[in-house]
């Protein structure tokens, strides 16, 4: 997938993310769809993702999501580095372990972003509920991938 295609794909996910989060915030739940999609993209990619690409994508999402510059960038760079370094190790892990890893990564992302953009109303309830929901969400995606492989088995 070319860089522009990836950018457009992630932008659509980001648009969905912003619309869904408005509804989910009523239930103290945050699912960072953009971040999870980016993790999925890095995880499924055949090649290593460059630091510059992670940085530029992060900056772009900071701009379109209206958050502080650098917020997504830090996480995109960190996750790209970590997944690049451990891409082969991940192949030895079970779906359960991978799902828990991505769910907890999403929770860390939620916690960090809440600390930056919502410090005055930081809520442990939101963090706790989001962690559980994110892990369950990753399980659902893994189940879909296992039972309907064609729907997820896209070439990245």
């Amino acid at each position: 997938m070319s860089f522009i295609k990836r950018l457009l794909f992630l932008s659509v996910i980001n648009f969905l993310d912003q619309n869904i989060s408005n509804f989910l915030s009523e239930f103290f739940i945050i699912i960072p769809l953009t971040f999870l999609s980016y993790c999925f993209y890095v995880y499924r990619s055949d090649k290593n993702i460059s630091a510059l690409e992670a940085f530029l994508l992060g900056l772009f999402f900071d701009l379109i999501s209206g958050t502080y510059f650098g917020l997504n960038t830090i996480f995109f760079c960190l996750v790209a580095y970590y997944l690049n370094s451990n891409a082969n190790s991940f192949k030895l892990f079970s779906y359960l372990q991978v799902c828990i890893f991505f769910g907890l990564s999403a929770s860390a992302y939620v916690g960090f972003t809440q600390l930056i953009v919502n410090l005055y109303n930081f809520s442990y309830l939101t963090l706790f509920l989001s962690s559980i929901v994110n892990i369950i969400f990753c399980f659902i995606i893994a189940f879909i991938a296992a039972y309907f492989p064609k729907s997820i088995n896209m070439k990245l």
Partner: protein
Amino acid sequence: MARTVPTTGQKLNFLLFLVISILILYLDLSSNNFQNIKNGFKSFKISSYFILKEITIEPLKFLQNRYKTKSSLIKENEILREKLKLSDLNNFITSKENIFSKNKEIYEDKYNFFYDVAKLRSINPNMFKCCDKHRMQIEVIAKDKTDNIEKFVFNKIGIIGQIIHQNKYSEVLLLTDTSHSLPIKSESDNFFCNARGSGREGYIICKYNPLVWSEEIIKNQIFYTSGMGGIYPKDIEVGHVTNIEVVNSIEQSLLIKLNASPLDSNIFGVLKN
């Protein structure tokens, strides 16, 4: 196919971009250096949205309406609705029950009370419902281009916030933004306080020392603007107390529910004075 482990050079690249990202985040948090880029992008987004709507949806709507017998009625209805919103705003200035009625200076001088009409252009409901930063973009419809910075914005129910940036569209700092501070007072004029935005939809928080301000505050007590600070006029009803929390012996906190919400209408007034 197995992926290669990043080389030392690639690792250094990641470290470099990580440090740059942290620096950018620190700069953005501590200064307003990136505000122009953000505002420029917001303006671009809003303009593109309207242009695209004008090019794609509006012609289709026009065609659809053309073949409908009710098309003229729909148009008329839209115009009337727009006029109704404007007349709502005009009426509440001259009505006796408007938010300014307690302020004698404004009320007696009501025919010289000038304001511009503004239309809502963008508000991020995600940020408004969750986060500390509560802003909205409005377009001030005025014949003469005046400086609207620090002018206060209201709707037909009450005060909404103040303009902090002006470009093609004006950025409004809402009362609920955590960086906003609103000087308020009780009806008896014996209690004054600076109420900060809570970061929550519809609430502001006033912290005070009960040893300094002896007046007893009760639930549902109404608060007004004190006029201090020079942005908001005096004696405008802001909201009522919903919760009183005793933090410690020298600090109490009042949670005040605001009367007006920016989501109530698309039309606003911007005080010219």
